[in-house]
């Protein structure tokens, strides 16, 4: 039995210390998923905390034959999807971004120079903003696929979808992202686009 299984078993028996170990281990993946889903650091923090609370309260329902990581990310994804759906009907917009509020990203040890890194960072931020325009479930599927290297089967299990539905959602999302990226670029560099040959 590895450490994680032991912590889960102890936590199921009521050990808060063991559960704290699980929080320590999974805080980054859970927070990252919530941040990519909700796009705001404060909302992501709140959602990640709530995810762990839900896991704590429902630990007796956890099936030990399944990976704890998959289970907790599934809780986080469902929570964020619900929250995004509620937000759709909210009167107030929560879309205001504060530059200082952006979370810290791990530095890239392979980065050749700061300028390249800054350009990459800009592109990543732009992509992060484009993710917001995807449907909540599509966004969860994309995040699980590209940030966590989940297989289509794992995504299907986590989001209660069929494998073919996951495939079609991933393809649809990739196409949508590419189209948005294309139109962003053409807005940002209109003179370059006018010199380009037509793609369609």
């Amino acid at each position, binding site marked *: 039995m590895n450490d994680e299984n032991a912590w889960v078993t102890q936590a199921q028996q009521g050990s808060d210390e063991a559960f704290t170990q699980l929080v320590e281990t999974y805080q980054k993946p859970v927070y*990252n998923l919530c941040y990519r889903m909700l796009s705001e650091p404060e909302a992501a*923090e709140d959602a990640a905390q709530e995810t762990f*609370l839900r896991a704590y309260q429902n630990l007796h329902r*956890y099936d030990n034959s399944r990976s704890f990581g998959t289970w907790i990310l599934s809780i986080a994804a*469902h929570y964020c999807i619900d929250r995004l759906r509620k937000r759709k009907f909210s009167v107030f917009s929560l879309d205001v971004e504060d530059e200082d509020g952006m*979370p810290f990203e791990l530095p890239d040890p392979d980065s050749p120079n700061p300028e390249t890194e800054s350009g990459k960072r800009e592109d990543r931020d732009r992509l992060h903003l484009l993710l917001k325009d995807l449907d909540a479930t599509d966004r969860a599927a994309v995040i699980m696929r*590209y940030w966590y290297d989940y297989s289509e089967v794992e995504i299907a299990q986590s989001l209660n979808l069929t494998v073919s539905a996951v495939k079609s959602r991933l393809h649809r999302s990739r*196409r949508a992202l590419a189209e948005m990226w294309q139109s962003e*670029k053409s807005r940002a560099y209109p003179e370059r*686009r006018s010199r380009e040959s037509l793609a369609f």
Partner: protein
Amino acid sequence: MNHLPFENWLLNDMPMTSEQQRELDVHLRNCSYCSALVETGRLLNTTKMAVPAAGFTMRFQSRLATRKIEERRRKLLGALLFVLGGSALVMWITAPYVLSFLAAPSTWISVVVSWLIYLETTLVALLNAGFVIFTVIPKFMPPFVWMVLISAFAGVSLLWSVSIWRFVRAPQGV
């Protein structure tokens, strides 16, 4: 412009031969959509993890402690409301009987005794009728009826067991 098969290669992250890569490079020079597909794919594959602010676990512990206190308070309040509400309801329902019982105890005692006698005689009559039925009917019932009855009983038991199992099975994803 026809994006096939390039779009499929890119969407499925398929490994490409050098010939396919060359064809794709030629296509990308003229196709801004597929270029965007390549660029977004590359970004998705290289974007890093966002990490929470330091002290996440501490904040979780304090939130958990607060939630436990709230939960305990809510349970206590629920139990209190249940007991008070239940007591009020019982008092409201029984008040007329209690009051009349306190006013004239002999009437109530005779009613209760007559009810007990009625209950006892009814039970005895039912038991006698049941005994007669169970001793007489089996003599007229052919064996296949017994088989059908036992099979039906087994089927219902199986259905009941499966229902219970499905009901208590642990769901995932909360």
